[in-house]
């Protein structure tokens, strides 16, 4: 995958950081061969653990959820796509909990099973990707996904200027192609470069852990944990387990109590797409 480092290019062209949320979130494109991802040729098996005890929907920060914001800025996700979406679900009794929900990267993915042209596929690392150049836009995958995690380009999303310097790859879906499907891709180019995905980097409470089931480690950027132990000791669960999709994303139940949230404090700031306002003539649609 050829390509100039975006950060390097931006620095050279003197484009301000306005188009990029934070310097640390600029995507970096490395040649795959130059930076092997796993030790000794063992393939990584990416997984994610989201500690809901530390997610308060960014209420304490007073902003729209930062995981979503980081993802939108990093990928230039068009409005109204929230590839990681913070749902507010009711709890038993009174109150709600926030559930940041990326693509669940299922191991028995209903979307991959039904795609007529194989435009969506599983990589050996277990990540489900979409080849926007092959997608015919039949939306069978959107019908099949039980987690509401796939988004269709109904209209023509605005093209971020940076997209002109990027080579197409299923691993970074920019620019959006009208008539095709997009979704969270677990940031494979970030992982290959040894970085956390945008959402994990963006979370102020470090609630999102990104891990490898092969080496059995996970990190949220500050601490490293043994993944299997972390899951068992914290009673991690998966969404809609009974459907048999075998997701790679797990959740530790909670309602933000470790960051001081009471379950009865409801509501979060609505998501915004600031980069889209910078592009002239930006249009969008409702989900």
């Amino acid at each position: 995958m050829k390509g100039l480092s975006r950060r390097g290019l931006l620095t050279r062209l003197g484009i301000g950081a306005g188009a990029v949320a934070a310097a640390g979130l600029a995507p970096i494109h490395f040649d795959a061969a130059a930076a092997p991802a796993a030790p000794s040729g063992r393939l990584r098996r990416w997984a994610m653990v989201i500690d809901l005890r530390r997610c308060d929907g960014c209420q304490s920060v007073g902003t729209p959820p930062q995981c979503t914001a980081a993802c939108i800025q990093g990928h230039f996700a068009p409005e109204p796509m929230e590839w990681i979406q913070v749902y507010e679900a009711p709890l038993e009794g009174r109150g709600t909990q926030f559930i940041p929900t990326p693509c669940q990267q299922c191991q028995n993915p209903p979307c991959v099973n039904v795609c007529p042209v194989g435009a969506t596929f599983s990589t050996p690392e277990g990540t489900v990707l979409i080849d926007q150049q092959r997608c015919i836009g039949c939306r069978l995958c959107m019908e099949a996904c039980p987690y509401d995690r796939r988004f269709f380009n109904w209209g023509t999303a605005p093209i971020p200027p940076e997209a002109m310097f990027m080579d197409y790859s299923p691993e970074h879906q920019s620019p959006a192609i009208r008539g095709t499907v997009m979704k969270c891709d677990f940031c494979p180019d970030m992982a290959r470069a040894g970085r956390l995905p945008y959402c994990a980097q963006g979370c102020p409470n470090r609630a999102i852990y990104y891990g490898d089931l092969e080496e059995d480690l996970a990190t949220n950027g500050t601490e490293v944990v043994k993944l299997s132990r972390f899951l068992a000791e914290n009673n991690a669960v998966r969404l809609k387990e009974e459907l048999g999709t075998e997701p790679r994303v797990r959740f530790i139940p909670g309602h933000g109590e470790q960051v001081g949230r009471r379950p009865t404090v409801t509501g979060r700031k609505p998501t915004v797409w600031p980069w889209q306002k910078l592009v002239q003539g930006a249009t969008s649609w409702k989900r």
Partner: protein
Amino acid sequence: MSTRTFAGAVLLALLLLVALPLAALAAGSERTTLTIAVPPGASLGQVAVVRVTLSDATGQPIPKATILITAPLSFLEASGDVVLADATTDAKGVAIADFDVRTEGTLAIKAVFAGDERYAASSASATVNVAGDGQLYVQAAGVQLPGFDRSPGAILAPANNAQANVGVLSGLAALWHALSGWPIAVALMTIWSFYATVVGLLFRIGAAANEAEA
């Protein structure tokens, strides 16, 4: 009792009153010794068993103490001491912890006793050489039936697993791929062979006309 003695006694009492609770909060002052025994080498993917003994300054075993087994590991952009396992010492002060070894290379194991009101913290280190290779985590989903267990020929097993990158086919390969779905292929070929029969009969109707005219 003179006033000075009385004052001294009160001072001592106050000191003890303050110092003792403080002392109780801090780790105990009693020195402890932690010894660790690890297997010299381990295989990737196997379970390594670590045996730890905790004893006090006099060599007496300390029971019911929690020992953590950690190792410094790095993952993506973070690194730190990762807790691999934990165990509690028994009456003989021996704790046996096990964990599955997932990182190859030289693993610097550290056993840590955090200490409690009575005992001081202590730790012990050892090295385990982990050798071996091979993929450990293989995702499995679905049912593997004999004869159907090869993707993409699998029917009941999910159409795509982590090893296969299904869909990257073209032309003739797609045809072969389709034919590997033999129930569909058999059904289609049966029906289309009936159609071919009918078309053949149509040709014969035409031929019979020519015969009649001839």
